[in-house]
């Protein structure tokens, strides 16, 4: 119980810390909005020549674009989350201190990342979505329950994304240049999450495989929940179940890597 | 403006060759400056000023603009080959002064010359004549081995090969860097990094070396090593050394002259001994007796300020010698151990203020 409160405190302070970066937030909103416009125009061209592509109509496709921009920072698809800090702490050796703290390292960082994501969803998600809705005709749901389901799905997306980035961050224990791997992770995340192109547009068997990978849980699934492509008790259970499974698998892998890293630090002193 | 202002002031009872607050500054010049000794001027600041515009949020949209005079008309000169310590509380303006002397910041007013160069106008030309060491942040390349960092420094300063090798060998030997050359800078300890940084700042034979808090956070051995090196450098090569510090021992062991800056003004310029007298600072003798005894009395020039079991604290003027006091105590009391505590720099400055206010009030 006290532990749970500790992690809530960590999340809260992380939220407040990111809330102090006002200029950075404004800059991010600007960038997300610019990208939203660029992608929205290309999708308009694409869906004009192929209406109903991937089962979306044009309004849904455009909603997908702006959902992607709204979630980009929260789900940290292009970095900017806890992993940068973790890697910096590994690089400077401060992580040795973290490993001896009486809290669980992975949960601690997860809590911090959830706090950050909550701020990024509000601070960097709402405005681009509103601008998108103002400039284009979007297919936003009217049911508050759908929005609630979307929030839950977004939270699960953050957890899956964190679990994946935690794995990348810990690789800095073994690699000289962790930033190179981060770049790689970023590019994988943007492609396989649907950020570049909705995954239901991906053709054939390749599409089938891509839709089952963990990155699908980061954007495609929450977007489909919002677009009511996944709805009803069964549809939503399937969506949440898919996200939760990947979250557990990746968190477990992170835990294994963390204990290997701890051994390495203890044995070699960093 | 500073020139004539200083000239018109009366010669006060400047002590220890230095000049106290409100006392004439000529004495300082005669002793240390170029006019009396005929030594070559290396650094000259006249009416040096730095004003920052600070904007502060006072409401949701309202903002208040305020002027902060970080350096408020400072005059001093440093002759070639001097070693001068800049002291003062945090935020007093000493770092700003050093930043102006190195060309990092542009002064808002006054005249400044370092090695005959105006730092703000010809920063790049100046960089070849000065060496800078920041205690808190390294000027070396964090991820590169020390050897590569030095090779880069050599190319950046275009140091001729022979001179570079001679200087590097000398620094490596005196600063004990031999085993560190292949270690990336990020893996060095604070003391090692400081030594490495000092070496990097000296490879191009600068005329002036600035050190910002060179001993901060170092262990006792590293501190001693750094101080020994700087003393030798100054003695053998005649390099002018300007350093800021919080550690009075740095000043005591290195500098004949201190400049105290507070609230952007020059509070004192002269010898350390004089500073103690101006500030009426006291040193403390900590005495461990065999057993608990009543407070020691009857030692001329000293008074017991505190007792705790067998340990007693005696205060005496910093300018007085400790020897007769120790001899007197040892003669009359069962002495086990004793140690001497130097006055705190903040304490000295605080006392200086108190003294400055007294004549004004009375």
């Amino acid at each position: 119980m006290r532990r749970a409160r500790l992690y809530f405190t960590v999340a809260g302070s992380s939220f407040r810390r990111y809330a102090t970066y006002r200029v950075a937030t404004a800059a991010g909103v600007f960038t997300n909005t610019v990208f939203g416009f660029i992608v929205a125009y290309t999708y308009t061209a694409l869906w004009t020549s192929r209406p109903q592509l991937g089962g979306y109509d044009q309004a849904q496709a455009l909603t997908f674009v702006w959902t992607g921009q709204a979630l980009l920072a929260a789900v940290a698809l292009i970095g900017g989350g806890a992993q940068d800090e973790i890697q910096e702490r590994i690089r400077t050796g401060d992580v040795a201190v973290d490993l001896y703290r009486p809290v669980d390292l992975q949960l601690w960082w997860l809590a911090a990342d959830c706090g950050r994501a909550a701020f990024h969803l509000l601070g960097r998600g709402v405005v681009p979505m509103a601008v998108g809705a103002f400039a284009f005709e979007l297919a936003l749901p009217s049911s508050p329950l759908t929005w609630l389901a979307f929030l839950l799905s977004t939270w699960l997306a953050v957890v899956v994304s964190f679990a994946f980035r935690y794995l990348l961050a810990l690789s800095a224990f073994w690699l000289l240049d962790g930033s190179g791997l981060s770049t790689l992770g970023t590019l994988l995340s943007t492609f396989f999450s649907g950020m570049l192109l909705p995954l239901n547009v991906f053709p054939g068997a390749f599409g089938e495989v891509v839709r089952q990978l963990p990155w699908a849980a980061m954007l495609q699934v929450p977007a489909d929940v919002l677009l009511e492509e996944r709805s009803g008790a069964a549809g939503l259970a399937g969506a949440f179940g898919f996200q939760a499974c990947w979250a557990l698998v990746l968190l477990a892998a992170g835990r294994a890597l963390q204990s290997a890293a701890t051994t390495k630090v203890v044995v070699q002193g960093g | 403006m500073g020139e004539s202002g200083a000239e018109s002031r009366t010669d006060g009872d400047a002590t220890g060759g230095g000049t106290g607050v409100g006392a004439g500054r000529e004495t300082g010049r005669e002793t240390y400056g170029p006019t009396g000794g005929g030594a070559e001027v290396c650094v000259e600041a006249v009416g040096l000023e730095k004003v920052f515009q600070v904007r502060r949020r006072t409401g949701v949209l309202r903002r208040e603009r305020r002027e902060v005079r970080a350096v408020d008309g400072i005059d001093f000169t440093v002759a070639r080959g001097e070693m001068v310590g800049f002291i003062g509380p945090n935020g007093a303006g000493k770092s700003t002064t050093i930043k102006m002397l190195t060309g990092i910041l542009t002064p808002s007013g006054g005249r400044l010359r370092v090695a005959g160069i105006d730092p703000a106008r010809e920063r790049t030309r100046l960089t070849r004549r000065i060496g800078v060491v920041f205690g808190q942040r390294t000027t070396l390349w964090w991820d590169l081995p020390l050897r590569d960092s030095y090779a880069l420094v050599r190319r950046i300063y275009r140091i001729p090969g022979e001179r570079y090798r001679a200087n590097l060998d000398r620094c490596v030997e005196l600063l004990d860097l031999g085993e560190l050359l292949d270690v990336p800078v990020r893996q060095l300890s604070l003391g090692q990094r400081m030594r490495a940084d000092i070496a990097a700042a000296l490879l191009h034979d600068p005329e002036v070396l600035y050190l910002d808090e060179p001993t901060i956070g170092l262990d006792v051995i590293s501190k001693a090593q750094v101080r020994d090196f700087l003393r030798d450098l100054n003695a053998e090569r005649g390099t002018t050394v300007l350093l800021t510090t919080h550690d009075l021992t740095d000043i005591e062991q290195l500098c004949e002259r201190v400049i105290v800056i507070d609230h952007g003004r020059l509070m004192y310029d002269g010898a350390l001994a004089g500073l103690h007298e101006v500030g009426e600072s006291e040193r403390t003798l900590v005495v461990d007796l065999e057993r608990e005894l009543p407070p020691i009395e009857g030692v001329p020039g000293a008074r017991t300020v505190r007792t705790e079991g067998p340990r007693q604290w005696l205060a005496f003027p910093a300018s007085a010698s400790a020897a007769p006091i120790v001899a007197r105590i040892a003669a009359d009391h069962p002495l086990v151990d004793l140690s001497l505590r130097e006055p705190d720099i903040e304490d000295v400055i605080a006392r200086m203020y108190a003294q400055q206010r007294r004549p004004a009030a009375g």
Partner: protein
Amino acid sequence: MAEAERAAAPGVRDARAVRAVREAVVRARWGVRAYGFIAAMWVRSTMAYRTSFVLMVVGNLVTTLLDFLAIVIMFTHIDELGGFTLPEVAFLYATSSAAFGLADLLLGSFDRIGSRVRDGTVDTLLVRPVPVLAQVAADRFALRRVGRLLQAVLLLGWSVTALDLDWTPGRLLLVPVMVVSGAAIFGAVYVLGGAFQFWAQDAAEVQNSFTYGGTTMLQYPPTVFARELLRGVTFVVPLAFVNWLPALHVLGHDDPLRLPGWVDFASPAVAALCCVVAGLVWRAGLRGYQSTGS
């Protein structure tokens, strides 16, 4: 006496101008040389871990190819996007990516200025006898960023063979010209973004809109975008000169803004202008830093 002085004044002024220009040239050459050896040192230090480096370059190459794969997937559903075929879009993609990749390789470290201002390490750059611009540009030079450039060259090779075009010398010459001027325009954006961070330290991300956002936009046909956006990137932030305008000429497409024909060849001049503006703003930013220290 005064007459004579007045008569001599223009000559004196000319001599001063000549000297100023000469000094600027000397300074620029020294800056480039210093950039060279600082960057070389970074390359050397990463080469100590050769396997890791090769993996990173390959990884970078593969993942940037994924980026293009998204466009290929689009074309599995359509034959033309905004009136452009896949090889044509590939040509746009490759030229945009090459220009941006070159700028990113050479000047990619400019987004770190804000954090350097915050932690005070800009001061350490100011006490070295190398232009700060060169030091910032060379800082943490990462050769692995060459991956994007490789991808662009591969794509360019494919699109040139796949395009059914009459490669006149003029068209052929336009390709390297657009890559180099495009890189200069993106480079100017990097420098401007860096200078902007002297005033707003946390605003590093704004420049992503123009660098990453710009290169993404330029990878698609201009016909896809709204007229106002096209005007913006032609007249305000002249990204259209990176590849769109010259590429339209090479591919034989009409310019949606109907600008006069000579603008297709104006990229080098626009790039030079951008560099001058960026240089002046950079200098103002650095001077601002030197007077406020923050």
